[in-house]
């Protein structure tokens, strides 16, 4: 029973997902169908409550699962992302005729997977959680299944995802071959070529999920093709999950190989920042731009991990939260627009937003500023913290790459923000609004602003995650 209580948040969310699946069948009228969202949100908020109400650290299921600071922080993150992801989706789905219970259920299932990644201390469980995170995302990507681009997105995601799963599995096998166990806690003292090889493959597998260069190529295509809210959600949740897994895996399993994995992660981080920001530079499609931006941000997130210190981990976690808010917010603004019944996903479509909806335009500017890392936004505080971590760990060059690429990113983020005010409104584009999505954007905007102005308490709370660093 106690074992199950440690898993209460996951169980609650999974239950909500199942409930939504069943509730989808009898609910017909639009009013009734509102229940689907309420159910999903209910599950998420109950899980949130369950997460926050349990403070003590404990292990369960023969040590496969641990509930500690890291788990709690990432659970809250995942649940928050899920909640915002849900509210952003609802209006869009209804508008495009895609609203089906499966959507919510899949979204929630993948949230379960992401939560488990943070809690797992066993490679097998990590692998399963990774699949539980990913498979629903493949489906979500292809959810607009009559659209060729959505199908293409789903298939590409799926194909490369399976490929990555294979690599991850092979890494698992090699690690197992060396150590004879899959328990992360027992891998600690091991060393050997197979372990190293396996660790490398494991990292590659997780890097894929986080869209780290050179394993990133799927991301732009998939995000562009996916339905807008799905892209928003997956661009965040996959990263949350992958970072959680890395945060669990690296310090626990590879304490003896610090000299190996730190430069490795640092180089990945640098490459990711560079390629992500360069790729975004010329994008006219906002989804694609945000996809590259999400790649770039994977690089920034890795920076904290590369530092390998408590500061680094906390910085990454905080930046992850900031990233979640700004990325979801930016996508959320787009969800509220449409062009001739389609998604308004091009930079031009933002034209005239400043006049049509000043609040929305202002929010968009805020998100862009935060993505660049301009104060006073959460993005700034996060980057500040990350650079602190990197410099503290002696990774000055990485911090330099980080700031240089941030400067490059100014070009494209601001172009988008600028378009919202300076460009002519494009014919056929309109603000469709939506209460739910609007609320989601508002929450994100508030979070981004507060995270920048009074980030203190949040950071202090995130510090509990640092317990995993020895």
């Amino acid at each position: 029973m106690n074992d199950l209580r440690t898993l209460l948040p996951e169980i609650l969310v999974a239950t909500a997902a199942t409930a939504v699946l069943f509730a989808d069948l009898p609910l017909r009228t639009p009013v009734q169908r509102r229940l689907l969202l309420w159910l999903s949100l209910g599950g998420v908020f109950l899980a949130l409550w369950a997460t926050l109400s349990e403070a003590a650290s404990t292990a369960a299921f023969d040590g496969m699962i641990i509930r500690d600071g890291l788990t709690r922080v990432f659970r809250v993150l995942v649940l928050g992302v899920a909640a915002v992801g849900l509210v952003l989706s609802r209006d869009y789905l209804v508008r495009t005729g895609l609203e089906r219970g499966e959507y919510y259920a899949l979204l929630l299932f993948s949230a379960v997977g992401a939560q488990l990644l943070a809690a797992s201390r066993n490679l097998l469980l990590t692998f399963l959680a990774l699949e539980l995170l990913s498979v629903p995302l493949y489906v979500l990507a292809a959810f607009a299944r009559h659209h060729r681009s959505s199908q293409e997105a789903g298939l590409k995601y799926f194909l490369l995802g399976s490929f990555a799963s294979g690599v991850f599995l092979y890494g698992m096998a090699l690690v197992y071959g060396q150590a004879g166990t899959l328990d992360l806690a027992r891998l600690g003292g091991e060393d050997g070529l197979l372990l190293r090889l396996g660790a490398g493959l494991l990292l590659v597998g997780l890097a894929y999920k986080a869209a780290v260069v050179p394993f990133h190529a799927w991301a732009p295509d998939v995000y562009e093709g996916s339905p807008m809210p799905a892209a928003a959600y997956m661009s965040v949740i996959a990263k949350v999950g992958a970072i959680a897994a890395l945060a669990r895996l690296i310090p626990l399993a590879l304490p003896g190989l610090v000299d190996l994995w730190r430069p490795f992660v640092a180089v990945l981080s640098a490459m990711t920042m560079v390629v992500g920001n360069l790729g975004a530079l010329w994008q006219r499609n906002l989804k694609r731009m945000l996809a590259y931006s999400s790649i770039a941000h994977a690089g920034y997130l890795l920076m904290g991990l590369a530092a390998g210190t408590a500061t680094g981990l906390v910085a990454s976690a905080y930046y992850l939260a900031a990233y979640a808010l700004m990325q979801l917010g930016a996508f959320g603004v787009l969800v509220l627009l449409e062009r001739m019944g389609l998604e308004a996903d091009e930079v031009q479509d933002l034209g005239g937003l400043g006049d049509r909806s000043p609040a929305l335009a202002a929010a968009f500017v805020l998100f862009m500023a935060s993505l660049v890392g301009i104060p006073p936004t959460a993005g700034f505080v996060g980057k500040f913290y990350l650079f602190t971590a990197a410099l503290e760990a002696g990774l000055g060059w990485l911090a330099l790459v980080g700031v240089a690429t941030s400067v490059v990113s100014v070009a494209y983020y601001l172009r988008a923000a600028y378009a919202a005010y300076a460009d002519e409104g494009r014919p056929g584009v309109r603000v469709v609004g939506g209460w739910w999505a609007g609320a989601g954007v508002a929450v994100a905007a508030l979070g981004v602003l507060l995270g920048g102005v009074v980030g203190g308490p949040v950071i202090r709370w995130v510090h509990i995650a640092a317990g995993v660093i020895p």
Partner: protein
Amino acid sequence: MMLSALVLLPILGSVVVMLLPRREELLRAVASITFLLTLALAAWLFWAFPPEERGFRWVERVPWIPALGASYQLGVDGISLLLVLLTAFLFPVALLGTWDAVRQRVKEYLSLLLLLEGAILGTFLALDLVLFYVFWEAVLIPMYFLIGLWGGERRRYAAVKFFLFTMAGSVLMLLGIIVLYLRTGTFDVLRLLQTPLPPQDQRWLFWAFTAAFAIKVPLFPLHTWLPDAHVEAPTAGSVILAGLLLKMGAYGLLRYGLGLFPQAAREAASLLSLLAVVGILYGGAVAFAQQDIKKLVAYSSISHLGFVVLGTFVFTLQGMHGALLQMVNHGLSTGGLFLLVGVLYERAHTRQMDAFGGVAKVMPTFAALSLFIVFSSAALPGTNGFVGEFLVLLGTFRADVRLAALAAGGVILSAVYLLWMAQRVYFGPRRVDPDRFTPLTWKEATALVALILVILWIGLYPKPLLERSEAALSLLSARLHAAGEVVR
């Protein structure tokens, strides 16, 4: 509380303006009142600041992000006091002088201006490096949009260029700030000023900070963002940009470059002061070759700011005093010049000097006021510019005669290009259309007269400004000389 009020008042005004309905008169009234209240508050601070104060007054401190060691700490000393006053003065003048220039999106325009004022004041008042950086960067977004939305034809290019240049420098400063924190364990400027750093740390930290400041100033050869930004910005934007944003860089050099890294500053002084002199001459020469009035004024800024940097890096009291005063002067004079260009542009819709000629005939009052400002910029004795330039020259002379000799060339050049401009625009046969060159509106006239009165005040009786900053600068100068001993 005083200082928080000073910073928050405009920001609050900005929010209020944003929330008000789109009624132009109402919006303008709210903005004007906010500006004037801020000015009143700043004036009171100036008046109440005791001249013998060496350190910071009205310091307030609230923990902000304890995990990062950052706190919300404000304070004002003799150095920042002048710039605060300048800021509070220049905004209402800029608004008044360009009252009719902006007709579109007045609400956003006013809101951004107010936000900008708050951020700039914050930059000058912050006594915590993180807070400083926050304000420093927060200035970018409103300025970006001011240029980008209300600017000229190439506004997009200019706005992005401005942003990229500035950001490129400031991120280096960000890294510097962090490393400083890692070395000393604090962002608190008050404590950092008391904490001597080992010279080898200072060296590259100094350059990291200086990168940001030098771009903002701008120091030759990092200046090329400035002409574009100035030319494309709307008049009020140019006034603020020249009058205040550049001062942020100069202020940074003085407060942080010199204050935190005295030894490194001494080592770098010869290079930086040389660049400053090159900037003085180069900016003047290039200004002379311009056809566009606004560009001419923009390059003149480079030249004038060269004096500021020069005065800063000769480390004599007079040099720094002159540099500080020259910051204020440049804000007034060049701000005034941009207002003039704005007045002309409003009427002619061009800034090419060829299109003008004989303006003095059709707008005699305006021409008279213009000449006042032109000569203030050319540092004619009796105006503010002379006091500043002379102090810089004197300070430089005491440190390095050769530099002073070269810098004196700038005195000549400023007369060359400014009078050249005056001749082509105001004098000569009348080429402009008298129907379009309507007389000054009373708002424009008031703005210019206000500027001129301050120009004369500082020119004739700069003592209130000088004496309030003397103690703080002497302290700084003494520390720099002590640092010099250590180096030797």
